[in-house]
């Protein structure tokens, strides 16, 4: 649910990074945080365990400037990827405007990827969203690893609706902004249709 404030001429949009545990959701956010102009970003908040696993969510607000006279603000969230945090994961999807699915390219994580997509689908449904219509982008992360599954194979297994996809190495920043931009674009385009 985007929040449009006509009084203060602002629009706030919520984007959520989803994916299996350790796929690089938080890494994506950290890279965006590092590379963003200090004036344009808020604090990066991570509710994580002592071992840096996401416990509840990471949150990064971005002020991207104005579109048609409206201040555009993106709130980026990640979910905890670990399977047993499903209750928390569900909460974060509340009011989401767009989802970025971060897939882990390692062969050993392919089952976790498909499981996470199924999980995303059912959690979205609980909030009344439909994965087939919501703005959605697929990021194939960790493409630099020797155990990475070939692109074609990954797309066949994970692509669900002809969504745009990006090959990424989030720790090096490769593909991070392309993914974000593509999702932001879809969300704004979606708003323009309404």
């Amino acid at each position, binding site marked *: *649910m985007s*929040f449009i404030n006509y009084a203060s001429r602002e629009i706030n949009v919520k984007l959520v990074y989803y994916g299996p545990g350790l796929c690089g959701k938080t890494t994506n956010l950290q890279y965006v945080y590092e590379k963003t102009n200090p004036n344009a970003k808020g604090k990066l*908040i991570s509710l994580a365990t002592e071992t840096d696993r996401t416990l509840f969510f990471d949150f990064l607000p971005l002020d991207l400037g104005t579109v048609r006279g409206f201040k555009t603000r993106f709130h980026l969230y990640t979910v905890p990827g670990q399977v047993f945090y499903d209750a928390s994961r569900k909460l974060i999807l509340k009011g989401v405007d767009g989802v970025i699915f971060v897939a882990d390219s390692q062969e050993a994580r392919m089952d976790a990827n498909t499981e996470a997509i199924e999980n995303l689908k059912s959690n979205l449904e609980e909030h009344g969203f439909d994965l087939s219509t919501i703005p959605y982008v697929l990021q194939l992360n960790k493409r630099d690893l020797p155990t990475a599954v070939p692109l074609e194979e990954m797309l066949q297994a994970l692509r669900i609706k002809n969504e745009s996809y990006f090959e990424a190495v989030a720790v090096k920043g490769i593909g991070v902004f392309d993914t974000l931009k593509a999702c932001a674009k879809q969300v704004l385009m979606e708003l323009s249709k309404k």
Partner: protein
Amino acid sequence: MGASDLIMYEEEFQKIKEIIGKLKVDANASVVFLVDKNGQQIAATGDIERLDCTSLASLTAGNVAATDGLAKLIGEKEFSVLFHEGEKDNIHISIVGGKVILVVIFDERSSLGLVRLRVKRCSEELNRVFQQIMDKTERDRASGESFFQSPFAEITDEDIDALFNE
């Protein structure tokens, strides 16, 4: 707009600001702010310069969402009031009309009792305003023609590229 989108109009925005401004004075609070359940700040008043309001809004919503989850687990509909006590500052969080979150930050110059009392009265007023907003949105939607145009109706690829190329 989707059915759940919140659209804030100038008239109601002013009313809301007035109501929370009054609450701040009546409850002797340092900060009062309103957040929607998704973590978007709606309005704030008081000593907000020293605070990171965006993060505060997001964490408040996360907090309320988690508490809602807890409530459901034990068979409650919701916990409508949350209170956090600190050494100096305290936070009182309450849900207004099941939709928005009212946050009051106060220190030793006020008390929990006073804040609770004032929040209760203020909630009723806020509830009425939000009902007005819903009705208005509903009316605009039903008439099929809102008095404003979506600011994004003519958005172009260039507009979006420009956002990311600063």
